[in-house]
Every structure is written in C-alpha cells, then in structure tokens.
C-alpha cells in the first residue's frame, strides 16, 4: 500500500476549511440547548409533583434511549415534509426544501444536547449542599437570586468535566451530519477521496483534524474549570 502524500496534504487543507462548519455544529447547539437543559434540570429537581415532570422525563428517556443516527434520520426525513405541509396549509411562500441542511443538523443536535446536558446539570445541582440555598434565602435572597448567584456558579464547576465530555462527544458526533448532506470535515474528506479512491489518506486527515479540535476543547475546558473553581483551590492542595 502506498500513501499519496500530495493528496494527503491537499486534502488536509480541504478538511481544515471545513473546521468552521464542525465548530458551528458544536457551538450553536450547545448554546441553544443550555437554557432548555437548565429548565429541564430544575423541573426534574423540584420536590413533589409537577405537571411538567412526566413529559420532560419522558423526553430525556427517549433521547437517551435512541441512537443519534436514528434521531438524525428521523428528523431529516420527517421534519422537512412536516414543515412543508404546514407552510402549504398556511400558504406561506416558503420552500423548506431549499433550506440549508445545516439548519436541520442544528435542530437534531440541539434536541439531543438538551436531554444530555439536562442530566449533567441535574446531577451537578444535586451535588451542591442544601444548606447553600437555605443560607441564601436567610440572607434575604429570593430563590431565583439564590440560583443565579450561589447555586449555579457552584453547580457549573461540578458540571464542567461532564460538559467537556459532552462537548467532545458532540464534536465527534457532528461527523454524522454528512447523513444530512452537511459539508462538515468528514463529508468533504469523503468527497475528495471518492475521486481517486484515496480513502486511507482522507480518513487520516479527518482523524488528525478531530484530534486537534478535541484536544483544544479539552484544554479550554480544563482552564475554564480551574478558573470557575478557584474558590476551592486550597482544598485540593
């Protein structure tokens, strides 16, 4: 077997050019999912019965219990037709089939991350001592103020390693976006490879691309955790 070095290098640049797509597919869903995930986590942490608890738990179970490939295929084949029917019914002059497929990728990944992130946050809030909320309320803070100033900052530090995990998994998971014809790193490499059957080289390039991105993400999260958790530094010494 011979490696086509010229192709290897050329394709690497093509892969690099697709890095922004992969980053967008990671960052936008993460940010879009965060408020919903927080809401679900708080609903599920509520004591006693709540009207929202059941549907919200069912949603989390559903997302966690199905492969992401299936979620992608489902949404990508179902959602456009559904939206099309709706726009037709309300006689909007929009053709949903013209939309950039990345739009559907955002939706799938956001729906997926909402469920996963909500579980991460739920366990993180659970790890914050009950006394912190009591002390905040006794100091005259409302519950919302207590969550914003006291509980969330502490929960986020605990959640950081898991959010990092989730982010790295999402970065890797975005490679499935090619199923929706999104031109991410994996997709462009495959396309390039298919002209001359240089699959080995192309896959090597993608490999390196993901390793670099994921490593950078881990380093960033490490620093973020250290910075946000500086108040517990002396404990670890």
């Amino acid at each position: 077997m011979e490696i086509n070095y010229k192709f290897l290098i050329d394709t690497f640049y093509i892969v690099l050019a697709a890095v922004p797509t992969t980053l967008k597919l990671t960052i936008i869903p993460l940010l879009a999912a965060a408020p919903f995930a927080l809401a679900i986590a708080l609903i599920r942490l509520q004591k006693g019965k709540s009207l929202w608890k059941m549907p919200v738990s069912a949603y989390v179970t559903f997302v966690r219990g199905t492969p992401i490939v299936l979620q992608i295929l489902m949404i990508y084949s179902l959602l456009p037709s559904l939206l099309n029917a709706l726009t037709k019914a309300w006689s909007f002059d929009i053709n949903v089939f013209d939309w950039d497929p990345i739009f559907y990728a955002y939706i799938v990944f956001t729906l997926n991350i909402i469920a996963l992130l909500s579980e991460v946050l739920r366990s993180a809030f659970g790890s914050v001592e009950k006394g912190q909320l009591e002390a905040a309320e006794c100091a005259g803070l409302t519950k919302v103020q207590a969550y914003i100033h006291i509980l969330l900052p502490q929960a986020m530090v605990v959640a950081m390693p898991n959010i990092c995990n989730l982010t790295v998994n999402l970065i890797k998971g975005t490679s499935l976006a090619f199923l929706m014809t999104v031109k991410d790193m994996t997709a462009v490499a495959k396309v390039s490879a298919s002209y001359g059957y240089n699959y080995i080289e192309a896959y090597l390039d993608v490999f390196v691309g993901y390793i670099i991105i994921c490593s950078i993400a881990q380093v960033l999260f490490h620093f973020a955790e250290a910075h946000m958790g500086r108040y517990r530094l002396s404990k670890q010494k």
Partner: protein
Amino acid sequence: MDKMLKVKNIYKKYKQEEVLKGVDITVEKGDVVVVLGPSGSGKTTLLRCMNFLERADQGEMEFDTISIDMHKVSSKEIGKIRQKTAFVFQNYNLFQNKTALENVTTGLIVGRGIVKTKAVEIGMKALEKVGLADRASFYPSQLSGGQQQRVGIARAIAVEPDVILFDEPTSALDPELVGEVLAVIKQLAKEGKTMVIVTHEMKFAADVATNVVFMADGKIVEEGPPKEIFLRPKEERTKTFLRRILPQEEYNI
C-alpha cells in the same frame, strides 16, 4: 417591654414523628433566649420553623406589627420576616463560591439592593467586629471552622436584623475553636442584640442568657432566668438533664 417576636402553639410532624407539640416562645427586644435540651427535643426544628426553613403544621407568629399563620404563610410574608431576621447555621453554610467579604455583602447587594460601595463598607465593619477584616478576600475553603463561623455571624449582623437565630453555632467546631465564636456572640449580647440561641454550651448559656428555655420531647418543660433554671430547676426532667450535662463542680454557678 417591647414584645418583638412571639411564637404561639407550634406543631410540627415529620411523617409519624411529632417533633414539636405546641411550643410557645416570646422574645423581647434585647433578650438573649437560650434554648437547651437533649438531642431530639426539637430545639433546632423550632428555630428552623421560626425562620420558615421548615414549615410548621400549625402555629402563629407575631413579629413587630406583622401577625401570621405559620402554616399558611405566603412566600411574600416569609420574605418580609427574613428581611428582619438572620440565621447562623451549625455547619456555617458560607457561600462556597464567595469570599468572606462577598459572603457578608451578597445579602445586602442582591437581597436588599444596597449599592456596592456602601455594602462593602458595612461588610468590612462586620468583619472587623468578628476580628476577620484581614481575611476579607479569603474563600471559605481557606478559613478554619471557627473563622468560617465568625464570617457566618458577620453575615448575620451586617443586615442589622431585629433578631439573630443561632442554631448550635459551635457544635461542628473543634474544641479549641469554640471559644473564639462564643466570644463574638458574648460581645453581641453585651451590645444588646436580640438573639435566640440553641446550644449545648452550658457555661456560655449561663453567662449570656437573659432567659433560658428548657425543651424535651417537643415541649417546653421549664423556662426562666438562667439562675433559676441552673440552680433551682423545678422539673425533674430538667434536673436529670443538668445532672448529666454539667460536671459537678460547675453545678453551682
């Protein structure tokens, strides 16, 4: 005398366990009420009910001019009461993500809308009072238990509450750190702060209390000035408790 805080007929039940069976307590301005009693007698629950950390099943509260049903109390009323009271916890419960100074100022800035510069000024004064001005920028994890509890007290006095509630403030401390915390509380008593203190420190209770309440099995067995309770307890239950807790030589205070 100004009747500041009066609680009547509190009942509280956890599942089948009746913890409070009709407790009345009256606190007048400048009073230091010390609540004593064996563990499981409901002292802490009483204190937590008074600040609505626990919801009493029944009971009435009169606070200044406010009068409320302790079971059906609304969160707005709870907020009102909490603006006038402060609570010192057994395990300090300092905000872990805040420095000593921020622990004191958060309630002022966020909870009461005081401007930051003013709050920092008040906060530093409170820390000075508990002897920790030089630790203002330290996080709780960098402080000893005794220092943490003093910050907890600073946090309580900074809001200038009408009443400070102490829930076993020295129970979680190493013995050699108890003194520094008690000294701070004694100082507050001297200044005429109104306080309700649940404690197991008998000598301290005898020193600072204006009124001692002895509780057992969810009821008040006996109450009165410390001299009465410690030297001439009337009830058999109080006598056995004191005999068990006080070393013989301290029995005659």
